[in-house]
C-alpha cells in the first residue's frame, strides 16, 4: 500500500500534530499528542469516553485552540488558522452528532458544503449518484431523515468541499450497527477519489476493520499506536482501559 510506502520512505505526512497539549477550561484534555497521517491512509483514533478523541479532532479542525503544540497540514503550520480557512484548504470535518442545518433542506445542506469548495471531483450530482436515496428526498428538511440518512448527508456536505483530509467524528454514535457498517463500507469508494481519512471511533472493532492505522488515547495520553495487523486484541484492550503490565513491542518503523 502506498500509505505504508510513504511512511517507511520518510515522506511528509499530509496531516500532522506535534506535541499537542489541549485544555478544556482548566482540565488538561490532551497531553503531548503527536502523530502523522499519510496520504491515502485511514487513521483511527480510538479510546473510551472522555479520552480526548473528539477534542483532538476539533483542535485539528480549528474549532478549539491548543495550549501548546502545532497542527501541520501538508507541511504548513495551520495552528493559527480559523476553521473556515482550514476547510477551504482541504480539511473537512463531519462533526459529532452530524450537526446538519435544521432549517435547511437536504439539498440546501449540500449546497452550503459546496459554497466554498476547492476544485475537485465532488459535485452535488455525484453525491446524489453515490447515495441513491437522496435525490428523491432532496427537498425534505433534515429533521425528517433517519439517523443513518442524516449521517450520509453530513458526509456528503463535507465531501462537497473537495477535501484532501476527511475528519470523521464518532460516526457510529446513535446509529444501529448495521447502518454503521453500511456507512463505513462506503469508505473504500471515497478513498478512490484520493481522500485521506482521520476518524474517531468509540466502537473499537469497527475501527479495527476499516483502519490502516490505529492510535489509542486514554485520559488524554497516547497508549497505543500501530497497524491493526500488528497489534493483538489484548494490547488494544490494555491500551483502551489502561491496564498496567502489558508488554510493549517496539517496531522498526515508528512512523514519526
Amino acid at each position, binding site marked *: 500500500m502506498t500509505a505504508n510506502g510513504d511512511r517507511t520512505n520518510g515522506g511528509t505526512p499530509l496531516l500532522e500534530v506535534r506535541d499537542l497539549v489541549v485544555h478544556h477550561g482548566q482540565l488538561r484534555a490532551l497531553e503531548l499528542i503527536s502523530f502523522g497521517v499519510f496520504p491515502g491512509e485511514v487513521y483511527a483514533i480510538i479510546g473510551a469516553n472522555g479520552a480526548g478523541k473528539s477534542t483532538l479532532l476539533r483542535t485539528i479542525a480549528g474549532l478549539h485552540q491548543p495550549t501548546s503544540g502545532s497542527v501541520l497540514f501538508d507541511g504548513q503550520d495551520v495552528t493559527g488558522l480559523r476553521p473556515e480557512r482550514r476547510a477551504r484548504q482541504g480539511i473537512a470535518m463531519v462533526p459529532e452528532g452530524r450537526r446538519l442545518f435544521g432549517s435547511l433542506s437536504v439539498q440546501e445542506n449540500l449546497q452550503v458544503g459546496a459554497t466554498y469548495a476547492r476544485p475537485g471531483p465532488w459535485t452535488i450530482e455525484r453525491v446524489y449518484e453515490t447515495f441513491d436515496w437522496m435525490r428523491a428526498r432532496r427537498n425534505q428538511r433534515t429533521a425528517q431523515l433517519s439517523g443513518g440518512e442524516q449521517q450520509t448527508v453530513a458526509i456528503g456536505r463535507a465531501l462537497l468541499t473537495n477535501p484532501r483530509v476527511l475528519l470523521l467524528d464518532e460516526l457510529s454514535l446513535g446509529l444501529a450497527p448495521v447502518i454503521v457498517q453500511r456507512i463505513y463500507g462506503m469508505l473504500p469508494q471515497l478513498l478512490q477519489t484520493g481522500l485521506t481519512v482521520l476518524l474517531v471511533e468509540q466502537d473499537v472493532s469497527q475501527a479495527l476493520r476499516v483502519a490502516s492505522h490505529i492510535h489509542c488515547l486514554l485520559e488524554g495520553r*497516547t497508549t497505543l499506536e500501530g497497524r491493526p495487523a500488528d497489534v493483538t486484541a489484548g494490547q488494544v484492550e490494555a491500551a483502551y482501559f489502561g491496564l498496567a503490565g502489558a508488554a510493549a513491542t517496539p517496531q522498526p518503523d515508528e512512523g514519526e
Partner: protein
Amino acid sequence: MSMVKETTAVPVTDVRVTRSQRNVAWTALVALVIVIVLALFPYIVYSGTTTIMVQAFIVLTLASMWNLLAGYAGLVSVGQQAFVGIGAYFVLILALHGISPFAALPFAAIGSGAVALPLWWLVSRLRSGYFAIATWVLAATVMLIIERFSSIGGGTGMPLPGFTGLDPVLLTAYTYWAGLAVTVLAMVVIYLLLRGRLGLVLTAIRDDEVAARSSGARVGLARLLVFVVAGAGCGAAGAVLAISQLQVQPSAVFSIQWTAEMAFATIIGGLGTIEGPIIGTAVFMVLQQTLQSYNAWYLIILGLVAVLVALFARRGLWGLVDERLGIRLFPVGYWLHTLARERGD
C-alpha cells in the same frame, strides 16, 4: 508501537478554608468612619454640596441594585425605573393621606418589593434578551397606567405634600440623611446577602446553572429574592428622589435615564463586584458635575466609556485594581489554603 504509563492524580491532603482576609476588619472600621463623617456633612458643608451628595446616594443605591441583578444574578433589567417610580408614588400617595414623606420611606421600599413579586411572575421564565425587553415594556406600561390617575397628578405630576412649615435648612439635612441611610442600608443588605448562602448560590449559577440546579440550589428562589430586593432598593431610591425633588412627575421618575445611569455607573466601576458601583458612581458624579449636569454630553461620554469598558475591561475600573493588588474591600468569598500555596475564591 509505544506504551505509556498512566499518571496518578495529586492527592489534596492538608487544606484549610478561611472566610476572609485580615483586612475585612479594617474595611469595616474605615467604612464606619466614613459613614460617620458623611453623617456630619450637613453641619460642615454648604447645602449645595449635600444636594449633590443626595444625587450621588440615589445613583449609588440604584447602581448597587443593578449590579446585584446583572452582575450576580445575571438578570439584565432595563426596566428598573419602574420601581424608582413606584417608590416615588408610594411616598406621594402616603403623603396625600397625611403621612410624612420621611416616615413613608420605609413603606415605599417595602411596597416596591411587594410589587416586584407579581412582576417577577410575569417575566421570570424569559431569558436574557427577552427578559430585558419585557422589563422595559413593564416599566413603560406601569408609567402609562399611573398616568391615568389624575388624583396623583396624571401625566403632569404634582408636588409632594407634607413639607409645609419645615425649615428649608432642616429639610435639606433630613433629605440628606434619608439618602445616606438608604444607601448605607442598601449596601449592608447586599453585602450580607452575598456573603451568605445567597451569594454561594448566585456564584454557582453564574458558573454553571445546570450543575447548580442539579446540586439542589434553589435557583429560582435565589433569582426571585434578588429581584425583590432590587425592587425594594430601587423603590427606596425613588422615594428619596421624590423627597429631594419635592414633586413627583411621571416622566422624571419613570425615565429610562435612571437605567442608563445605574447601568453605566456599574459597568464602568465594575460589574459583579460590590466595590464597582461605588467607583462607578464617583466617576459618574464627577462627569455630571464637570459637564454642567443635565447636558446631554455627560450621558454620551458616559455611554461611550461604558461601551468601551464593557468591551475591553470586563470587570471595570475596580477589576483593574483588584487584579493588580488582589484586595477586596468587601470580601464575600472563601480562601482555600493548600499546603504552601494559596489560591483565591
